[in-house]
């Protein structure tokens, strides 16, 4: 187990390294660079000043050399300054990371709590009205554009009913946790609906597959009730493919969080990355993307651990 963990962590490190290079190169291809932006805002700057500043910050060096310099600094914990916020990158990033984890964690839990029972119920009574209803909800859920769903929820709960705030993370400092919670409801609701939908479909399919197995028939034949067989025998095995999907879905969940955060002005990582890209904040966008990748990779690893716990046939010891 330990050697598996170490191998996976090394693999994750490699992915991060490759990602950092790719993103570094891509960000370098975005329109404008910081000095040009500075020059366009200050008519007193001559082209000689621009050249001197570029030399000072090393922007006249070849791309790979700049990347190597960045990497060496980053490995020592120096991620540079944010252009938009004028503070070290990590100072902006870490509080945002906490907000996103809260949003994603809540949506993840809710979608598990809804999708697993719903998928099981649908599989237990295939082709019943309940099954059709649950299926219809699932299809609607993964066909609806998340930003439009957010718009509709704002229209209903914030504009029409006035029950919940339409945007923001809190009403201000000292507003208390209840206010925080009220600001979380709509973003979490949007994200949960979208991520529940595909999970329901997978749970239903996996459960149907499992219910066809011989051991299920045996358990029924020796007189156990359907309910006991469903939760006692079939559930654990049906969970194995579902956990695989969950692991792969963290990336999608983060993408969803980006849209939702942008819609609700929820101060999380997704919105941070979006704003950084739009505002030419090179350092912030780069480090934000790497942190997002790191969180996703760690979540994948966690899901693999659960996978091993569910299925004793899988052993990571070599």
């Amino acid at each position, binding site marked *: 187990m330990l050697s598996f963990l170490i191998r996976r962590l090394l693999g994750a490190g490699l992915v991060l390294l490759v990602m950092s290079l790719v*993103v570094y190169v891509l*960000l370098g291809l975005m329109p404008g660079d910081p000095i040009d932006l500075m020059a366009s805002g200050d008519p007193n700057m001559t082209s000689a000043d621009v050249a001197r500043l570029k030399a000072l910050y090393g922007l006249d060096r070849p791309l790979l050399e700049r990347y190597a310099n960045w990497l060496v600094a980053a490995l020592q914990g120096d991620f540079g300054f944010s252009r938009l916020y004028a503070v070290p990158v990590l100072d902006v990033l870490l509080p945002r990371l906490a907000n996103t984890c809260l949003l994603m964690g809540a949506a993840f839990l809710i979608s598990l709590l809804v999708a697993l029972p719903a998928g099981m119920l649908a599989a237990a009574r295939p082709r019943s009205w309940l099954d059709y209803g649950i299926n219809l909800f699932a299809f*609607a859920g993964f066909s609806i554009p998340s*930003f439009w769903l957010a*718009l509709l929820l704002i*229209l209903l709960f914030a504009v029409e009913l006035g029950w919940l705030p339409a945007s923001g993370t809190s009403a201000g400092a000292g507003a208390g946790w209840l206010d925080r919670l009220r600001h979380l409801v709509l973003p979490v609701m949007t994200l949960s609906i979208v991520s529940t939908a595909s999970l329901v479909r997978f749970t239903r399919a996996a459960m149907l597959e499992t219910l066809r197995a011989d051991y299920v028939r045996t358990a029924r034949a020796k007189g156990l009730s359907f309910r006991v067989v469903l939760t006692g025998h079939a559930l654990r095995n049906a969970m194995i493919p579902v956990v695989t999907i969950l692991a792969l879905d963290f990336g999608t969940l983060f*993408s969803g969080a980006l*849209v939702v955060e942008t819609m609700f002005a929820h101060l999380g990582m997704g919105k941070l990355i*979006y704003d950084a890209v739009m505002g030419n904040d090179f350092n912030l966008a780069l480090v934000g993307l790497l942190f997002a990748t790191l969180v996703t990779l760690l979540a994948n690893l966690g899901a693999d651990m659960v996978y091993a716990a569910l299925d004793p046939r899988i052993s990571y010891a070599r």
Partner: protein
Amino acid sequence: MPAEPAHAAALAAGRGSARRPTSPGRLLLRRFLRHHLAVASGGVLVVLLLASLAAPLVARLLEVDPDAVDLLNRFAPADARHPLGTDELGRDVLVRLLEGGRVSLFVGLTGAVAAAVIGTAAGLLAGYLGGRTDAVLMRLVDAVIALPLLPLLIVLAAVDLGKLGFPEALIRDEDASLWRILVIVTLVGWTGTARLVRGATLSLREQDFVRAAEALGAGPLTIMRRHILPNVASPVIVATTLSIGNVILVESVLSFLGLGIQPPLPSWGNMLTGAQELIWQAPGLAVWPGCLIFLTVISFNFLGDGLQDAMDPRAD
């Protein structure tokens, strides 16, 4: 995957009796027609496609120009000339919705097909050749599937093509954003198909008819094209249909965020961009484009579901 059972049934029926055998295509159609939602979705999609293709015609009939700005006539209510009213710049909403449909459907269909072609090629190569080719391609697929894609796509969409050495004329072209978004959705979409085709190829590779072809001296390319490709065709068709909806969703969210299709070229996504601020003045602007995205995507998903049931009756 075994040879199509429908063939065997048709052969037996033809040999034994004078009854006309049911062709596999007819069986397929019969099974598809049983899925009422899929049939209805197909109808909806045909109507949407025809309506968006007829956009220039509708514009001529109503005597409106979809790009003409009329600031004296903003947020006009519905009337005979503007059946759905006008938007924040006084442009006709109906004609822009139809034009936007053309863009969204074009991106969805073309992007999904391009992704399917790349994915099928990658899957065939990885599955049949195995070894290092397989390892490299599948690591790539794993990475693309697991990573948080949307932030990366945002960076990709923001890249300045001029810095990549593309000619100025091409970048200034009105349709440049259309081609860029096509490339982006293709980059995202190929992985699912690649996995699917690789899995099917791995099991087909071991079957007798492939072994026989190998023994007769057929090269890898011939075997992949003549013996394996026809056998993976139906799951690929299903997967491609199901991915059209996804492609349209990706296009719409990027356009919504201001990074996809660039105005004045309308798309359902970019028509919603301003809708959030205008929700008080003109809620209709927020409703229509979203409804059409939703309707189109869910229709493609139902259609794919129906095709799946028809092509693989054992599933589910």
